[in-house]
């Protein structure tokens, strides 16, 4: 059993139910301190999805991907283009075909973004199949940069992406007549828009977690791990390494694509600036710090690495005042300093991640 809860099956279900209840009520508590906190929670969910997607490539299959943010970008821009006035304003034939403007249902967008990102994953996977280790790392990094540079510059001569200005006025998610862009009035309680998104992301995160856990013990999951441990031996055992690796790229990418689409809907705005190399690196750090290949570890890594800088943003100043009694270091600098140090220290004391396997 991969989650390794030290309880019996019945108790485990009680635990899961309690956890679910806690996650459902969490935004109400956070909401007491302002909607900004719910926003942080929602973003944490997005990063959990991203980290779990990358975990398939890096953790399960052992392929170091430093350009993962490209798939996030693909998903985000796909949603942005299909659900904003941008293409409508740019192209005459779109105005004629869709006189009401482009609006896409989430039921179409989620599978489509997953599929499109998977196609990009295979596109990246094909040329790099023969590469190993660090050669793979630099090529994936280059791929991520290439996607970003294209997004940044495809505003001329034909304006596809609106360049560095990005695309705005993206439709909010709409499910069964409920628009996530407005607060939902249930009569006895009003749920703000960010909280609706939080619940949506929570559901998706649960799906991603279940898929990840189930993959781990599946035939293909075992094939990935066999390749990770020893590619030649895996081949000798009859694993079709090419297809299995491509599948890892495609599946990992599809998680990224869906998170990207959700990000675009949540923000209502996308620009190339959200998809820089540093973002890819942070996601890799989430996977490695949490414990590569371990679902619970990766979830913990993603939440912590996203939460540390956000919490530091809020407490850096008061903390300094309390300890030194004066603002010696600018809060923003202190925050990055502590963030970097935390990464170093965690890795030094737990080289296998928070919850990592001893071998590998």
């Amino acid at each position: 059993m991969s989650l390794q809860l030290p309880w019996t099956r019945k108790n485990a279900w009680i635990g899961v139910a309690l956890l679910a209840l806690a996650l459902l009520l969490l935004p109400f508590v956070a909401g007491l301190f302002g909607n900004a906190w719910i926003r942080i929670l929602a973003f944490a969910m997005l990063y959990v999805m991203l980290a779990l997607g990358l975990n398939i490539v890096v953790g399960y299959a052992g392929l170091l991907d430093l350009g993962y943010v490209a798939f996030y970008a693909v998903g985000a821009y796909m949603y942005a283009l299909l659900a904003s006035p941008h293409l409508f304003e740019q192209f005459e034939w779109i105005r004629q075909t869709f006189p009401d403007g482009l609006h896409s249902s989430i039921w179409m967008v989620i599978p489509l973004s997953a599929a499109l990102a998977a196609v990009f994953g295979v596109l990246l996977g094909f040329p790099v199949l023969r590469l190993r280790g660090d050669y793979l790392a630099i090529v994936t990094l280059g791929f991520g940069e290439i996607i970003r540079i294209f997004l940044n510059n495809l505003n001329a001569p034909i304006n596809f992406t609106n360049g560095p200005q990005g695309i705005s006025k993206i439709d909010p998610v709409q499910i069964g007549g409920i628009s996530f862009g407005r607060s939902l009035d249930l009569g006895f309680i009003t749920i703000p828009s960010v909280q609706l998104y939080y619940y949506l992301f929570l559901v998706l995160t649960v799906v991603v977690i279940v898929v990840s856990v189930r993959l781990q013990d599946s035939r293909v999951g075992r094939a990935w791990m066999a390749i990770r441990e020893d590619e030649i031996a895996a081949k000798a055992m009859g694993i079709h390494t090419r297809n299995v690796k491509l599948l890892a790229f495609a599946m990992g990418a599809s998680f990224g694509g869906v998170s990207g689409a959700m990000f675009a809907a949540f923000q209502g705005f996308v620009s190339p600036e959200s998809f820089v190399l540093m973002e890819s690196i942070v996601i890799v750090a989430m996977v490695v710090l949490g414990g590569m290949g371990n679902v619970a570890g990766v979830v913990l890594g993603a939440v912590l690495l996203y939460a540390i800088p956000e919490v530091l943003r809020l407490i850096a100043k008061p903390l300094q005042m309390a300890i030194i009694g004066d603002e010696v270091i600018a809060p923003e600098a202190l925050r990055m300093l502590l963030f970097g140090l935390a990464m170093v220290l965690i890795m030094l004391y737990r080289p296998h991640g928070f919850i990592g396997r001893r071998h590998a």
Partner: protein
Amino acid sequence: MDIFFQQILNGLVLGSVYALVALGYTMVYGILQLINFTHGEVLMIGAMVSMTMVMLLQSLFPELHGVWIMIMAVAVAIPVCMVLSATIERVAYRPLRNAPRLAPLITAIGLAIVLQTLAMMIWGPNPKVFPDLLPTTPIEIGGAFLAPKQLLILVVSAVLMTGLIILIQTTSLGRSMRAVSENPKIALLMGINPDRIIAITFMIGAALAAVAGMLVAMNYNIVHFTMGFIPGLKAFTAAVLGGIGNVPGAVLGGLLLGIIESLGAGYVGDLTGGFLGSHYQDIFAFAVLILVLLFRPSGLLGERVADRA
């Protein structure tokens, strides 16, 4: 034709800086199979320290010639970077030598963030001007023009690279370095202290990065706490292009990447009928890298690595 020659010259200038930095990546990789992600930040610190020294020297000795100021500034920047790099190795890499392969990558990224933030605190968040130390009238070479500082970059890098190759190929230190990169355990049995050699390798790489840092600052007349990132990335690309772990490969990869970028920026517009502009320069570099690796998966001069990554 003159424009073509000019682009090649510009590319060589750019490429020799990449090559200097790539050498640091490739030497460390050759010995530890580790991507030293803090290398670009060491370059940045080198540039910052030399900028401070230049300012200090200019205010203390206003009559001193630019060349002397430069030499004295870099003479301070080099040891600072060497100590910094040796410390990084000692603190963030050595304890993790037997850890999973990605662990040192994460400590490196963490340290890079720390170094950038420290630099921002010390030298401020805004870009600073790096003064011109050499005359600015361009020199004509066969129809193309080269600023004296660019000529200096070419000469300094050529000298340093030759020096490094002589060091590695002929001296006893170089032999030890090659032995450790071949097999650290056997090297230990032969009476070599691998830890010492590794520390020295980091320091040599850092010295080259310090010089490269000052050259970059001089070339663009600007220093900023984020300036290490792009040259670091490009140099890493160059090292991989040439075959990471291979010293002549790093030089070749650096120069080639510089020329490709320069020609790419110059001609991409004509080639694609104006569809792609010069801001696609970086795509060119990465596209060539991917193409080369498609046909030579271990880089241009790299040896076939054993099948255990």
